[in-house]
């Protein structure tokens, strides 16, 4: 077992984990943060996407011990403490950007990181930016619209 310490959603976490424990399993099972979903466990679908030191990472492909000392943000840590939605979540709700919701946390986290890097993307850039996450329900229609809306809302806020 390996001792580790990291920051998860702003709180310091200390734990003892097996070296083979993935970061996704650590967050779900040890931290109780079940908003991070596992849909392929081989790094293709993006459902388990989280932020590690601000960058979007597939938590099924990273070991918990590799995140030692990192600042981790999951879907649970993205929205304001008062339970309201952030700009990206608000846009997904407004644009019918989700149906079953299973892929949604990964999309919301990925889009948050994407818009941080590229605050005013073109449509082609949006589609390219989303192409690393799989959704089986929406046909991506509402998701593309949500990214456009979130980018506009961010621009309006700045």
């Amino acid at each position, binding site marked *: 077992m390996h001792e580790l310490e990291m920051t998860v959603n702003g709180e310091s976490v200390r734990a003892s984990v097996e070296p083979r424990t993935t970061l996704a399993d650590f967050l779900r099972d040890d931290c109780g943060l079940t*908003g991070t979903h596992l849909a392929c466990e081989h790094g*293709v*679908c993006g459902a388990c996407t989280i932020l590690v030191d601000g960058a979007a990472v597939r938590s099924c492909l990273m070991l918990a011990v590799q995140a030692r000392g990192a600042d981790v943000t999951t879907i649970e840590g993205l929205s304001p403490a008062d*339970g309201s939605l952030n700009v990206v979540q608000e846009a997904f709700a407004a644009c019918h950007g989700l*149906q079953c919701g*299973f892929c*949604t946390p990964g999309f919301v986290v990925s889009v948050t990181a994407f818009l941080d890097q590229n605050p005013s993307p073109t449509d082609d850039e949006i589609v*390219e930016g989303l192409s690393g996450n*799989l959704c089986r*329900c929406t046909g991506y229609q509402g998701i593309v619209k949500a990214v456009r809306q979130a980018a506009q809302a961010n621009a309006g806020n700045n």
Partner: protein
Amino acid sequence: MASSVEHLAAASALAPSARLVGTVVRRKEDPRLLTGRGRYVDDVRVPGTLSAHFVRSEVARGRIVGLDTTAAKAAPGVVAVLTAADVNGRLRGRMAATPLLDMVNVPERPLADGDVRFVGDPIAVVVAESRALAEDAAELIEIDIDPSPAVVDFERAAASTDILVHEGERDSNIFSSLAVPPDDELASILSSSAHVLAETYRQQRYHAVPMEPRGVLAWFDPPSGEFRVWISTQSPHDVRSVTSRITGVPETHVRVTMGDVGGGFGQKAYLLRDEQVIILVAHLLGRPVKWIEDRRENLLAASSARIERCTVTLAADDDGRLLGASIDHLDDAGAYPLSASPGTMAALYFTGPYRIPKYAFSTASAWTNTVPRAPYRGPWQIETFAREQAMDALARRIGVDPLELRRRNVIDRGELPYVMPTGMSLVHVSPSETLEQAAELIGYDAFRAEQAAALAEGRLLGIGISLYIEPQANFGVYSAEPAHIRVQTNGCVDVYLGSGSHGQGLETTTAQLVADHLGVAIDDVAVHQGDTAQTPYAFGTGGSRSGPILGAAIRHAALELHEKAVAIAAGMLEAAPADIEIIDSVASVRGTPSRSVTLTQIAHTAYFAPEQLPPGAEPGLEVISRVPVTDPLYSNACHICTVEVDRHTGEVRILRYVVSEDCGVMINPAIVEGQIDGGVVQGIGGALLEEFVYDEAGNPLTTTFLDYLLPTAADVPMIEHGHIETPASSPGHYKGVGEGGAIGAPPAVANAVNDALAQIGARVDRFPMSPPRVLEAIDRARPTQ
């Protein structure tokens, strides 16, 4: 541009009392799902839960000659290693879903016993203190299988008895069959008409692929005799019935709970074999056992669909008017199907939106040594896949435009009710209107000019049409759904449904219906489903039935409750019931808003002061309704898309995609369009990307998302919508819209690709239409120098 959701939000003159029905209301589900607070089956935590892991066959067919679990049983953290010898004898009843119990020809066995019949066939279950420990121990199981030749090709399986999938149990590989052969008149039409087209269409094997794989947490508690099951399903009540039937635990002691479900698309409609094994194992062990399927298992062992062959014969006169048709259909049932062949539905509805006076069919379903078939969104869609491609082929044969050929044969509104040659009566449909609307939206004639100009530059553009009628399953248990509505003592409204929403947004559309028809604020309505201890019996969510059939029940229950509340309010206000209106939970005398009582006061009277109720009124304020919807129920649509085929790379790019849909009165247009969009993109996946591939020995080759290609955002255009609203005869006039997108899209894309390729004399007839196949078709067509 397409008529938009905003335009429709103002519509729905068909529901005069409506304020929310017909409008885009934000989903009640979304806040929890967007913040990571959904509760899917793997999020359920029960102390002491063990993890189960399946050990599966790695060969398609063979005898199990050695099975040694000794080392695995001794491995760290292992609680049990179970095989057929431990589990199968505990089976107390049929594994088939309750509505399908009359389907007798189904081989049912929990774990492989003595032999294996497909790669993925479960042989053993390891139960351990963690998933990792269970997987570690599974490595220690020694299995010796003496392989024998497998039958992987369903056409070969049907044609020969050399290799029997269920050897010793069945004397052929034919699971089911049905035929109505041509009479003399049709035989003559099919042989001697001016134009006769006979073509064979084949679909590839592709899967439902919900983003959340299957999963179940089952806990039989011996002291109490209670069986709890948490599961990712579309049909919690049938999971309860099957759990009772296979374990012998009385149904009264079984409680099934589904929380949020990450997609199903039919795969989770009926309780499949692996989940039933876990339930049997939990019953045996008396401890909570959880199994969460991984993606590899979901692809190789959950369920397949679409692998079918359909030979179509169409006969037309000189002008291209259809005179008769026949189909010969065969599908692949896999090794252990627990549901019926889609062939019967496909055969019954083949003639679809066209005037075809004479028709005959044959259909059969064959077992193979492959993953079992289960329903997948529009399970019978081979009829549209084959018919719409055949219409384009006939148009090319005759030398008319495919749009013109459809115009000559499409059923007009004035001909309704139109009795199809199979005897079914088409009512309340608008195939002609959707065809014209879609053609206008895409700018059909302008595209033909653009296509010609592009060809002059050496570029290949194409346009494809797909027109279909989508029947909603409304027979037997599928024809009625329950809705239980209770106004609580504080005026809030609880709605209990037996459904199993898994992305359809039923919490939202239900609340819209209740808010409008009861007269309450939508935020006061809470919708509960998925817990069999709380909700009335229903088969569940599937078959595009929630809109028309569940919607009718919700509406009816809300209206009945409204009537009760009005009667009580009338007594309290000393007014005639006819003069009472309820708006936003306040009942007042029409024209005198100061004379009013709140729904809370009404509820208070109903529960706490029944002696003050008007004569004949029963205490309490709740209603449960089941409204049988047995009239024919059809939605219909036309899809038209345009593509560019790259003649150098074989890549197909979809340029535009238009859907004109008629699903009757729309409850929430955003959800309607969302259902269509999701289906269309699944259909695009089927046309261009998705295939579950076996080699000749039955080894699966596409068991990751690197090999099994799902559409991404980069593969699809923004879909444009048009709507026609032809009300159904059912209460509320709603029709189903869950499956149509996946039915219409594959032939629309295929027709567009072949329209582009026809300009250079090429045609692709294998699916998916991947770049190598497109290039091969182009090469084949290239004249030899």
